[in-house]
């Protein structure tokens, strides 16, 4: 393990950014989101959650796939180049790291999404333990330990020191390039980190959502849940916006569209939301015609369909962004609780 004083972080960032792109939480107009580091970027490591999850480092909100050009009657197609440059994403939280694992299941399964795969190959994740988890967090429910993020490098911010622990080969490689600004940590430091970890875990225990139960969601429950009358009630306040989807670290749906630039056509993909009325709109119409169906889709996918296809891995990581951002105060926790309550009533 290594350490670096908080005030030297800029030197660290400068060093990393000298060799490759560096993404980290940056504050722009009062809001913290992951962005590219530059000298005048306002880095914010204190805010627990970025508004958007950092998933767009690997799966950008929109990206070009290929460009068609027309010269006279001839048409040429140029595929978009894959990511070739290494980059570092610094400051991801344990839940967001799990989010990337969820995305991997989707994009790295056959057929492999080459754009995503290229970014994964070239990206090194430096994660950071959650110093002060908040009431909307429920990562523990999904077995995530926010005190010990599983990334290429794990870090802890303890008072004015950042502790740095490479966990993978990529992490080791990155560490080598920045060793000049790092100090080796001693036993006392190890102890400080352990203390921090147990403090974090202690807080997690106290969080209101930490004892949320997923019982009733595992096993062969598809039909039972799908047909539940509860959805009819739950969806009602839903405004059909895409906030939950777009802040979510695991939502992976996208749409493919064409844009006429005047010199040709760019085919690009962009995030889509299953909450939108024109989601998966096809020539014959839409296979989910009501907002209730669309609402149900989102939660069924996260809690039933996805685990069924991925060895029980839920595609929710408990980051709590939807809890904080839903304009109608709906969220996955309320859905889980509603079913739990109903189950309780039944029993």
């Amino acid at each position, binding site marked *: 393990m290594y350490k670096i004083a908080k005030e030297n972080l800029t030197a660290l960032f400068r060093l990393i950014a000298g060799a490759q792109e560096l993404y980290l939480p940056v504050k722009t107009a009062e809001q913290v989101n992951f962005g590219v580091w530059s000298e005048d970027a306002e880095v914010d490591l204190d805010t627990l959650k970025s508004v958007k999850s950092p998933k767009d480092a690997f799966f950008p909100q929109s990206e070009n796939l290929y460009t068609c050009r027309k010269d006279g009657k001839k048409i040429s197609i140029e595929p978009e180049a894959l990511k070739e440059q290494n980059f570092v994403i610094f400051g991801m939280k344990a839940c967001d790291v799990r989010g990337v694992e969820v995305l991997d299941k989707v994009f790295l399964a056959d057929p492999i999404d080459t754009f995503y795969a290229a970014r994964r190959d070239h990206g090194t994740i430096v994660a950071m333990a959650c110093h002060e988890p908040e009431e909307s967090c429920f990562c523990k429910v999904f077995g995530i330990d926010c005190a010990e993020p599983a990334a290429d490098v794990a870090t802890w911010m303890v008072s004015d020191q950042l502790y740095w622990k490479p966990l993978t080969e990529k992490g080791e490689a990155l560490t080598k390039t920045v060793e000049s600004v790092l100090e080796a940590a001693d036993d006392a430091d190890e102890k400080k980190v352990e203390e921090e970890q147990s403090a974090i875990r202690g807080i997690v225990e106290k969080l209101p959502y930490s004892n949320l139960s997923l019982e009733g969601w595992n096993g062969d429950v598809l039909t039972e849940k799908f047909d539940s009358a509860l959805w009819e009630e739950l969806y009602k306040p839903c405004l059909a916006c895409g906030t939950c989807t777009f802040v979510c670290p695991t939502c992976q749906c996208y749409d493919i569209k064409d844009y006429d630039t005047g*010199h040709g056509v760019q085919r690009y993909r962009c995030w889509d939301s299953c909450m939108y009325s024109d989601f998966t709109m096809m020539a014959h119409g839409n296979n989910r015609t009501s907002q209730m169906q669309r609402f149900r889709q989102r939660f069924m996918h996260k809690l039933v369909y996805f685990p069924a296809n991925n060895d029980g891995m839920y595609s929710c990581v408990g980051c709590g962004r939807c809890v904080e951002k839903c304009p109608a105060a709906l969220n996955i926790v309320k859905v889980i609780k509603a079913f739990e309550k109903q189950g309780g009533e039944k029993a």
Partner: protein
Amino acid sequence: MSIEAKEEFRPKIVAFCCNWCSYAGADLAGSSRLGYPADVKIIRVPCSCRVNPMFILRAFEKGADGVIMCGCHPGDCHYSTGNYYARRRMTLLFSMLDYIGVENGRTRVEWVSAAEGVKFSTTMNEFVEKIHSLGKNVRLGDLRCRN
């Protein structure tokens, strides 16, 4: 800006002209051989009230450097009141564009009657000159549409 650079920049300018007055005014400018730069391309609409703010933003999106809308003089609209609505819409739209920092001179409304070939021509000359002075539109366009 040097003279050479000025010559290089050929602005794209879209002019929406109502069929009854301004388009006819443009025709009159033509038949009177009153020239204006070829950068101006006219789109015929039935009335200035047919011009949707969306059309204007779309022109900018796709790389226009200036958009001008011409209609009948207030009171002379072929459809009685169309240009009055257009006037309010454009006033608000232009004000909004100004508000978000788009240079004010990139948009303009001018009332040109069927008899005002001279006015049409001078207006277009003036407008092109204005766009030249503002230079390329970089604040309101889609990057993908730029060469």
